[in-house]
């Protein structure tokens, strides 16, 4: 199960409702308890997006401060964990936008190319079987994480938000200040590009 999902699901407990009520009443110990319960999980989310420990720490701090500032308005319509998850994603994206921008890599080279006959110039080759044990192995997970890290940033972020953080298309579009159509196209391109990066490893049966 993806951590972001479990983050949301774990927020449904009665303990969270009590914690929320105490925070809304200004109980300092409750704020500390909230940080101790959720900071580790929020840090994992921020690390995935920012890939830099210092920036991830700063994003988690931004997220908690923002959450605490708005705690009186939080009506419990979402689970506490889900609410904090959305806030840390936003905080991490804000940090990402403020980072010194590097020239964006092009995704073109990683997309399929077609000849005049409309067939792919490099025809797809079937992949070797990938049993669940292989999919879950540390080696495979590291390889896939590395390949995701090679995607151009705007595609990597859409893939993370949609497939890993489990956000809906509409929510992703809102967070990235773009349209749902752009999110859908970028997600498809990101998956195609990731497929191209994984292809040499799986077609040859390296794993």
């Amino acid at each position, binding site marked *: 199960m993806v951590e972001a999902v479990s983050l949301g699901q774990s927020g449904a407990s009665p303990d969270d409702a009590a914690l929320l009520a105490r925070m809304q009443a200004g109980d300092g110990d409750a704020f500390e308890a909230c940080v101790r319960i959720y900071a580790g999980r929020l840090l994992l989310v921020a690390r995935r997006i920012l890939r830099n420990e210092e920036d991830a720490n700063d994003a*988690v701090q931004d997220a908690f401060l923002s959450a605490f500032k708005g705690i009186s308005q939080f009506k419990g319509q979402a689970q506490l964990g889900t609410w904090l998850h959305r806030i840390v994603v936003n905080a991490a994206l804000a940090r990402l936008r403020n980072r010194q921008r590097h020239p964006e890599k092009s995704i073109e080279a990683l997309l399929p190319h077609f000849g005049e006959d409309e067939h792919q110039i490099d*025809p*797809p080759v079937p992949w070797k079987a990938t049993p669940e044990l292989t999919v879950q192995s540390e080696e*495979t997970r590291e390889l896939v994480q590395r390949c995701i890290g090679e995607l151009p940033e705007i595609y990597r972020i859409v893939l993370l938000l949609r497939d890993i953080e489990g956000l809906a298309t509409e929510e992703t579009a809102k967070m990235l200040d773009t349209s749902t159509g752009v999110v859908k196209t970028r997600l498809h391109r990101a998956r195609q590009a990731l497929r191209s990066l994984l292809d040499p490893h799986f077609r040859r049966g390296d794993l």
Partner: protein
Amino acid sequence: MNCREFTEFLHEYLFGNLPAEERAEFDKHLAECPWCVAYLDSYQRTIQLEKAAFSAPVDAPPPAEAPEELIQAILRARSRAS
């Protein structure tokens, strides 16, 4: 439908709510094109792999706690802000 169109709109075939007529076009192409069958399979497995890459393994311990230094920094910042 040709390979270019199949590849371009593959995500609609897999996840979109296509009318039966359009789905039939994709199915017809797949029945005739082993390359697109291979592409479709590897595309779906890519999604499976990326989702697994960041999920906690079944036997993983609970998520690590944040460093104490970070927790204290957050609590100090909250005190300053309030």
